[in-house]
């Protein structure tokens, strides 16, 4: 008996038949593709979130250093004006701020930056001792004492300027990453 073309299964019917028999496998493959795409986008989102967080943290550190930099300039001005009692108070503020930065950003700051901040802290301790003595005795400082205090203030200011620049650079690097 001759089989007519109309009796042959069409492409559509074959496809329906194939899907009917393999729907489980096809669903698994589709699920796998969807999961892979989701994982890819989740990873990208996670990386972006990490970068955003790092940028916010760096920006916050830069702001903190910027404030310390202003305080350091104020200490220097007070020393120049011979206002030792006020300079001592500002030294205390800046010392506490430096200590806070060291503790808060312990995990983020590189060793060089930590050494710089430790140096600033030590300079402030010394400056505090000298200004305390001068304020207590109300004796005018010698030219050498003034010079040493100004050098110390200059060093502290330089440290904060340098650290502010480093924090800003880290910000830029995070933005460009």
């Amino acid at each position, binding site marked *: 008996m001759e089989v007519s073309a109309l009796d042959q299964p069409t492409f559509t019917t074959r496809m329906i038949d194939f899907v009917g028999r393999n729907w489980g496998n096809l669903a698994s493959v589709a699920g796998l593709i969807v999961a892979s795409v989701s994982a890819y986008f989740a990873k990208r989102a996670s990386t972006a979130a990490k970068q955003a967080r790092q940028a916010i943290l760096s920006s916050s550190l830069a702001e903190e250093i910027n404030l310390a930099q202003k305080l350091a300039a104020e200490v220097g001005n007070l020393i120049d004006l011979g206002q030792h009692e006020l300079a001592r108070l500002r030294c205390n503020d800046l010392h506490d701020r430096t200590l806070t930065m*060291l503790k808060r950003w312990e995990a983020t700051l590189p060793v060089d930056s930590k*050494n710089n901040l430790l140096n600033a802290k*030590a300079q402030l301790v010394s400056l505090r001792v000298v200004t305390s003595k001068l304020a207590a005795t109300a004796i005018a400082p010698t030219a050498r004492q003034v010079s040493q205090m100004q050098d110390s203030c200059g060093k502290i200011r330089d440290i904060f300027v340098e650290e502010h620049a480093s924090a800003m650079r880290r910000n830029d690097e995070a933005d460009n990453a």
Partner: protein
Amino acid sequence: MHDPKALALFQEIHKKTMAGKLAWQPTAEPNKFVAPMLGKYTLTLVPYTSRDEWGAPQGHPSIMLDDEKNATIVEMHTGVDGIAPDDLESLLVFARRTALNADQKIDELLQELQKENDIPF
């Protein structure tokens, strides 16, 4: 006082300072120098061992090592067996040189003085 760790640390500090490899920094106090290390320790060199009740400095120079919590963890002075007063005095001299960039200035001065000795022909 027998303190082998303090002595070993002092010997290393002395060696590095004499070689100009320890970054001592001047402070607002005369002859007091500091050197932060490893981002958590600070070496402080002062020209005395202690102060009397009037605040007057006494004894030879000494070094203190402070940790990140500001606690003094080691003190190096003549009271430690093996640390000689001469070593502490020389340490102070060389720390001052490093802190004030004195070597560079001395070389500059030497060059100038030697130039003046040259007889022009």
